[in-house]
């Protein structure tokens, strides 16, 4: 993707999953994996006669996020009604916040710094506000072909933070970095758990420079955001290439078909008819309240990064990557309690652990590996029981099965071969099978590696590499002197 032509702004929805109850009623906020429509009450179902009551703790969590994203924080909380009809809306209006006609969002004018290939980039945050989550619409298969849809109100009324960026992002990769950083921040604050499905969602505004803005809705996870941007970029580029103008419109991300589908054009763009919510009085936030909430804020990723560098002597890059995910940073520090070669832990995490997680397309929290298991494997390598090369092989198995590396090694007879006698048996076999290679190796130093490789292969990677190297050279020099 060309950096100069893409303009992306994000509207992130972060569920305050740390809350016990919903935003405006006392229903449990823990609605997942429950029988549909069982965590509901008159208020979150929008029954006639019900009224909202603000969950004060939701305001507290919102204030923390506003502070962590370097926002200007409002001294009062005013809710507005956003009026529009949609089947996931129990009242056909959403209680939200607004930044005009007397409204003010909880936080505004903040920023997040992200690290990109071209250096540190500042992504401005336009505003943060509190609102209620709509119900969940369950489609039968794909959104665009579902013959009917079902509504589950369990999610309705759960507290959401809407975090809107300025159009400061220029690629899918940057958008992804931003979302990772955002997730790490809210997880460090302890306000939201990004592992919960649907806890972090995102709408994307995307345009190719000079073209109209297209909004993509219905993206259910940060992972999908990257795919949606990629698709939409190509779609718009194709249109422009053919001389077709890109219309300003709202499109839905069809997660199953992996395409964006047009939902409505600008002519039918919604007028939300915002007005102040008359059922809720404005809440003033005196300085004492704010101070009480913001004192003892947990350590944030930036601070943790600095600490990882000083406390463990990690390179800045490692510390950056680790703290971009709270789970990774926690994993590292847990491991560091058990094992003192910190750089070694970091190397393994940054290298083979992350690579395997990427290949398996899972998060560290979804994998079976624990800090104890990683450390146990590192100790086996240090003690010479297995080779580093074997470590690279079994780490994937540990990630997938959570088996103790010692057990794996025994099961698979993977213990490193460091007996000269045994290794020589393998070496002799190889020398007999590849007389040509032996000849080459006698003439050319570089060709030795081929022989070593063949022996390693025969041992299933279990040969002690240093010993093997020595024995092969010894054997060659023996041959060489016998010829002379």
């Amino acid at each position: 993707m060309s950096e100069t032509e893409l303009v992306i702004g994000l509207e992130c929805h972060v569920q305050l999953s740390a809350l016990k109850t919903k935003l405006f009623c006392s229903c449990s906020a823990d609605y997942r994996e429950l029988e549909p429509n069982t965590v509901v009450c008159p208020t979150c179902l929008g029954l006639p006669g019900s009224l909202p009551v603000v969950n004060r703790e939701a305001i507290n969590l919102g204030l923390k996020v506003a502070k962590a994203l370097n926002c200007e924080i409002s001294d009062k909380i005013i809710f507005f009604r956003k009026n529009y009809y949609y089947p996931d809306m129990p009242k056909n209006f959403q209680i939200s916040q607004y930044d005009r006609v007397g409204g003010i969002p909880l936080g505004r004018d903040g920023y997040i710094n992200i690290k990109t290939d071209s250096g540190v980039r500042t992504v401005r945050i336009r505003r943060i506000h509190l609102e209620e989550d709509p119900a969940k619409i369950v489609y039968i298969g794909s959104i665009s072909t579902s013959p009917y849809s079902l509504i589950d109100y369990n999610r309705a009324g759960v507290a959401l933070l809407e975090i809107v960026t300025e159009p400061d992002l220029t690629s899918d990769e940057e958008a992804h970095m931003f979302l990772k950083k955002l997730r790490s921040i809210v997880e460090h604050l302890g306000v939201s758990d990004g592992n919960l499905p649907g806890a972090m969602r995102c709408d994307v505004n995307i345009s190719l420079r000079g073209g109209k803005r297209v909004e993509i809705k219905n993206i259910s996870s940060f992972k999908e955001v990257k795919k949606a941007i990629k698709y939409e970029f190509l779609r718009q580029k194709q249109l422009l290439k053919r001389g077709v103008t890109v219309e300003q419109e709202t499109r839905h991300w069809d997660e199953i078909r992996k395409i964006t589908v047009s939902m409505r054009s600008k002519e039918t763009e919604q007028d939300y008819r915002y007005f102040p919510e008359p059922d809720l009085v404005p809440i003033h936030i005196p300085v004492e309240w704010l101070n009480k909430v913001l004192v003892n804020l947990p350590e944030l990723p930036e601070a943790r990064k600095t600490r990882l560098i000083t406390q463990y002597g990690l390179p800045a890059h490692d510390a950056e990557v680790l703290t971009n995910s709270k789970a990774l940073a926690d994993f590292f520090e847990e491991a560091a309690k058990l094992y003192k070669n910190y750089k070694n832990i970091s190397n393994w995490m940054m290298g083979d652990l992350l690579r395997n997680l990427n290949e398996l397309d899972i998060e560290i929290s979804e994998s079976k590996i624990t800090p104890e298991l990683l450390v146990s494997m590192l100790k086996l390598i240090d003690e010479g029981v297995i080779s580093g090369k074997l470590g690279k092989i079994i780490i994937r198995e540990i990630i997938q099965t959570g088996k103790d590396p010692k057990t794996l090694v025994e099961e698979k007879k993977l213990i490193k071969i460091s007996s000269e006698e045994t290794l020589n048996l393998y070496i002799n076999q190889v020398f007999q099978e590849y007389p040509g290679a032996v000849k080459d190796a006698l003439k050319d130093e570089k060709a030795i590696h081929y022989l070593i490789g063949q022996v390693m292969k025969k041992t299933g990677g279990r040969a002690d590499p240093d010993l093997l190297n020595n024995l092969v050279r010894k054997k060659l020099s023996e041959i060489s002197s016998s010829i002379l």
Partner: protein
Amino acid sequence: MAVGVRQPASFCGVVGFKPSYGLVSRYGLIAYACSLDQIGPIGKNVRDVAMLFDVIKGYDKHDSTSLNFDIGSASSHLFNEIKDIHIGVVKEFFGEGTDTRVESSVWNAIKKLESIGCKYDFISLPYLEYAIPAYYIIAMSEASSNLARYDGVRYGYRADLESDWNDVFSKTRQEGFGLEVKRRILLGTFALTAGYFDQYYLKALKVRKLIQEDFKKAFKKYDILVGPTSPILPFKLGEKISNPLEMYRIDVDTVPVNLAGLPAISIPCGLVSGLPVGIQLIADFTEDLKLLNLAYKLECELNLKLKPDIVAGD
């Protein structure tokens, strides 16, 4: 509904009391216009109304607009002696369109107030002129939003139609709502639409503020304000439905109080051609006990024995 207590009470020759906004919880009340809605009792006499009020008032954590303090017992306060009560007769309540027979009946009651020791003189609240448009814009705007939930998905009427949600919502609401409700939803939706919001809704809020200030000023000098509850005598069922503007204008004396959130009571003050007339007394915010106290004294002094003529078979 906001004027749904005092005006019907006035037309029926009974007592209707709208407490200060926030004294009676709205939790459980089907919302029409939340910022104006206030539940109030209707009864045969002031004492009944005060007793019921004592039961239904009080703080409710389920209603964020509920007032968190206790004003005391209304029914035991009724019998207190009144002294040094200064009454303001609101000029605008006797303006154009007020039936002279209503006026003279209300004046008769004002004289009774004088006879039990109240002083009175005239006061003008200039912004009351704009109360009706402001009230209806705010009420209809809020109503358009409050009534949006009746879409047939979760409860209530649902059109017999198999189509996409948009069609089902539209048909349900088209068939389920009556003419007057639809009119109010449409006007309210219009008033909140981008481009009109400033000139209608925001302006109405400003007028509301000015009316509140008018009252505030008045209550620096007066304890109670008075006037007719309705400018006209009761009309026949359905008589005004085809002329909404005329119908809305009948609320001219009752809605200013809703805009200001004040307590007000209508008590019968006489009969004209066999039809009841009500006098409205208004007090400052949360002075509900003072209001009921005076209303009770006036009721005793008027000592009306109202028995409407019931015409069989009409």
